[in-house]
């Protein structure tokens, strides 16, 4: 009954106007759901973790897959903008910055389940800051050696495969970059 979504049949020559999204919420399509009742066939496309899909598959009363704390949290809403937990679950954007404080850990759970933060963060303590990097007002410049590292890595791989033509190309790029770096040294480094 459930097919992995492969192609939108009619999409061959026409560009879709906007990215395809779930018929129930705003997430990407993962499942094509076909329901046959008597002579009537209905076909809808939904995202993988759509509450609507759960409802159709398992019946109305099990629509939140397990987890007791989820049910207790269902009534939560942001006092500043009125965004509810329900709307957050179906992928509707947050309404204001206060939402981040209201939903806090629930947000992190959501991010984890939609695989939108690196896995190693899942193991860390939830209370510690997960953002790494600049804060407002800080400016920064890219260390040019980072690009060199990437090129060197690629160079080593091509050498392993004995693809000398490619290796020569990469070496030229590395050379050009190192020369550039030398000539541009002495520029003031903007870093507060």
């Amino acid at each position: 009954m459930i097919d992995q979504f492969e192609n939108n049949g009619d999409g061959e020559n026409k560009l879709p106007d906007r990215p395809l999204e779930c018929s129930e919420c705003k997430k990407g399509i993962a499942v094509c759901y076909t329901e046959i009742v008597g002579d009537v066939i209905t076909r809808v496309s939904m995202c993988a973790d759509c509450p609507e899909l759960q409802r159709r598959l398992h019946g109305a009363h099990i629509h939140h897959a397990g987890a007791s704390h989820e049910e207790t949290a269902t009534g939560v809403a942001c006092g500043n903008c009125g965004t509810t937990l329900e709307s957050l679950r179906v992928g509707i954007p947050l309404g204001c910055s206060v939402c981040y404080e209201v939903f806090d850990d629930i947000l992190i759970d959501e991010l984890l389940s939609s695989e939108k933060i690196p896995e190693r963060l899942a193991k860390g303590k939830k209370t510690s800051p997960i953002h790494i990097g600049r804060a407002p007002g800080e400016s920064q410049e890219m260390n040019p050696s980072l690009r060199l590292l990437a090129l060197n890595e690629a160079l080593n791989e091509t050498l392993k495969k004995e693809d000398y033509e490619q290796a020569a190309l990469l070496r030229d790029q590395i050379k050009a970059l190192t020369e550039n770096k030398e000539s541009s040294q002495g520029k003031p480094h903007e870093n507060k």
Partner: protein
Amino acid sequence: MKINEPQGSILFQKKPWSNNPNPIWLASTVTLLRNIEKFKFPGKLDDDRKKQIVSLVSKDLLADGATAVGGLTKPSLIKGESIGALEKEYLVEHFMSSHNYNEAGAGEGFILDESGEFLATLNMNDHVHLQLLDIKGELENTWSRLVKIETALGKKLNYSYLPKFGFLTADPTQCGTALLVTVYLQVSGLVHMGIVDDILEKIADESFYISGIQGNPNEIIGDILMIQNNYTLGLTEENIISSMRSLTTKLIVEETSTRNQVKKDNSADMKDKVSRAYGILTHSYQIESVEALNALSLLKLGAEAGWISGIGNRELNELTFNCRRAHLLHECTEKISQEEIPHKRAEKIHKALKEVKLLT
């Protein structure tokens, strides 16, 4: 249908991608998403508040100080309601955007500058999206330039920020650095040798989102991969950029050696594919953009293998961008109907490929 040219046509001034000799790297964009403190996100704002944001941000971005710091040249504001659907489509095509600007109305806006590389969208998902387009493969420099613009603006406005979640965005999956890096690579060789999936599995991990240019991961149009960072939270901007650099370098290496292999194999099957693509492009009476982009990619493969003469990457890349609907319409001087577009496209391609010869 006809494109209007309002506002001294800053929209149409420069096409950064029109002179791109790169065989694989078509374009890249670097985007920073920012919201302004104390205001609700655009989805919850009424029109008056939205207009307030537009005037706040544009006042600061258009001010002389920001112009100097960010290196912007004569930026100007285009209000959402002042341009039509086709002009917005033109913007989407120009900046390879995966957003739909069509819904931009009175409370939304765009800020462009003369370079044709800078775009700020106002009140679309977030208060400000600052974006730079680049075709030279200069991810690192582009990011540095964008950070300058972002910090210049940040001196006048306070961004929504929490130490735990970083910069706050309406879509919680984009908070943290709120940095999106997107690279468009044309991997004609990998696709037509049937190895693109294997290669991607080998070198790309879950920290990248890879799809076609329309945002559909199951439909790769014109053999162009759109590669974007999947994570914005929990790693630094340098991490994001350097892992993107590393992935794209590896992919380019694979694609170049595959193209060399295609040339060396000189296989009848591949030559057949290229000849058919040439036939479609030069003899169709009407052609849709997806078909055109696919065939143009094969033509590129053929040109590099030495099976086709009279055209280079520069021209093929330009045609790839210009045969899309809004760009095509922009070149038309007269008004044409929706039904006539595929024919206009075919005509344009015929003209561009006039000197192209299939070598046997």
